[in-house]
């Protein structure tokens, strides 16, 4: 490349850098598309090692087939039922606890804050258009019975959630209350997810269990995604755990209710994901000791 070519490229790039801040989404997407087109692209003209791969595949086919895992553990049903009862109990207690905490520490009675009658405006719901997606809306729409998540104000930051009050103190109280609510919802969610994963036994399969697991996982998946998009997902460690959990729950939610046989592979993959990511251990670490009883 000649010096002149390099200079021209440099000029183009400088222009691009200067323009980026003024570009609309469409133009930015075009730059992103150009710059990412060769992401992990196979080298030009490269052919997959078809024959070498086939040799190994055929050799595996000739070898002893892996045993099918199909026996049902009776205790698993009991464990599953116990987990459902545990989660339901936890949510009930949690609701009551939230109500008590909310009425005591977070809410400012109207009678004690006369100024709020006129000075308080409704808490603005912070919209984040760039983050709101059809899927998000769809996910949110699907959650009809996860009251703990519905109770969470839809805000992007606690400070935005605080109502505008003249003395400024109840705003702070509400913000910390909001954080506590997210914290509580996350802990409760982790406890529920742990209960699901602990009761999950990949070596046993049947259609009814798969259907229940899929439904249960689907509920938790919606909640996981909501938490990911909430301030609760800002903590990097917690976010990574939520993301790993999301992957496993997606796989579990895909278990077909009437595909008892074909679910074997899915079970194997779920096992792999849970094991590889130490999800159960991380969930247990994320929930403080004794928190589950408090929830």
């Amino acid at each position, binding site marked *: 490349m000649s010096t002149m070519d390099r200079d021209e490229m440099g000029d183009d790039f400088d222009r691009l850098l200067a323009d980026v801040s003024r570009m609309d989404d469409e133009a*930015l*997407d075009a730059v992103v598309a150009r710059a990412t087109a060769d992401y992990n692209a196979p080298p030009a003209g490269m052919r997959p090692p078809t024959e070498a791969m*086939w040799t*190994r595949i055929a050799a595996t086919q000739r070898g002893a087939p892996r045993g099918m895992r199909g026996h049902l553990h009776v205790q698993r049903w009991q464990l599953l039922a116990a987990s459902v009862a545990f989660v339901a109990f936890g949510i009930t207690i949690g609701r009551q606890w939230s109500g008590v905490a909310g009425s005591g520490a977070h809410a400012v009675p109207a009678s004690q804050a006369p100024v709020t009658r006129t000075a308080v405006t409704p808490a603005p719901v912070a919209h984040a258009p760039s983050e709101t997606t059809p899927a998000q809306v769809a996910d949110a729409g699907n959650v009809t019975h996860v009251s703990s998540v519905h109770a969470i104000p839809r805000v992007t930051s606690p400070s935005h959630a605080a109502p505008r009050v003249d003395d400024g103190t109840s705003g702070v109280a509400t913000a910390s209350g909001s954080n506590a609510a997210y914290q509580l919802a996350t802990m409760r969610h982790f406890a529920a997810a742990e209960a699901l994963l602990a009761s999950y036994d990949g070596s046993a399969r049947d259609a009814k269990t798969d259907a229940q697991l899929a439904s249960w996982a689907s509920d938790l998946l919606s909640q996981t995604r909501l938490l990911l998009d909430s301030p609760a997902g800002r903590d990097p460690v917690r976010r990574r755990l939520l993301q790993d959990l999301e992957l496993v729950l997606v796989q579990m939610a895909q278990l077909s209710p009437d595909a008892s046989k074909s679910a074997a592979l899915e079970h194997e993959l779920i096992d792999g994901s849970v094991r590889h990511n130490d999800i159960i251990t991380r969930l247990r670490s994320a929930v403080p000791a004794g928190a589950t009883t408090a929830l």
Partner: protein
Amino acid sequence: MTVTALSFTASASTDLGAVRAEREQEAQLVTRAAAGDPAAQRTLYDRHVDRVYRLAFRMTGDADMATDVTQDAFIRAFERLGDFRQEAAFGTWLHRIAVTTALVAIRSRKRRDRRYRPLEDADDVGQVDPQGEVLLREHLHRAIDGLADGYRTVFVMYELEGYTHQEIADTLGVAVATSKGQLFRAKARLREALKHVAAEVRERRMTE
């Protein structure tokens, strides 16, 4: 009915007929392969290996890993063929296995070599390359690496490999709206990464 409309109808029914015949042929192949017929297995392999390998390569960025993922996907698929009920196309089912296998492999690699860096960490521009576009590309590639699995998979499949949202939805077992949503968010994050890198490079150039 006009001649054009008639010919269009005839053409469409021919296409539909061809698709149906192809489906039936593949169903027979799957049945034979499930019974252990090596020739049928090889035919299925030949039909799908290129696309599966290409997707595995795009997802892993490594020829050896792509080879392993492709092999494993076919081995698992052939082992489970008896359970495959042919409600979806064999290719869709196979792709789902391949994507999940690739994601597990990528996660194992990340844990092993700790190469993983989340998007938030992709802010050290490092040495300014005189060919800034190369630098920009590298950072955007790293930003893709830092995307959550779901976002990255949909981005790679849709933007880079040309799958439709319907194909992605079928493969990943999600709704079409979810696929679109994941892509939307992935692109939003990459736009942010682009702005971030551009601002940083500009700042560095000004201070030099």
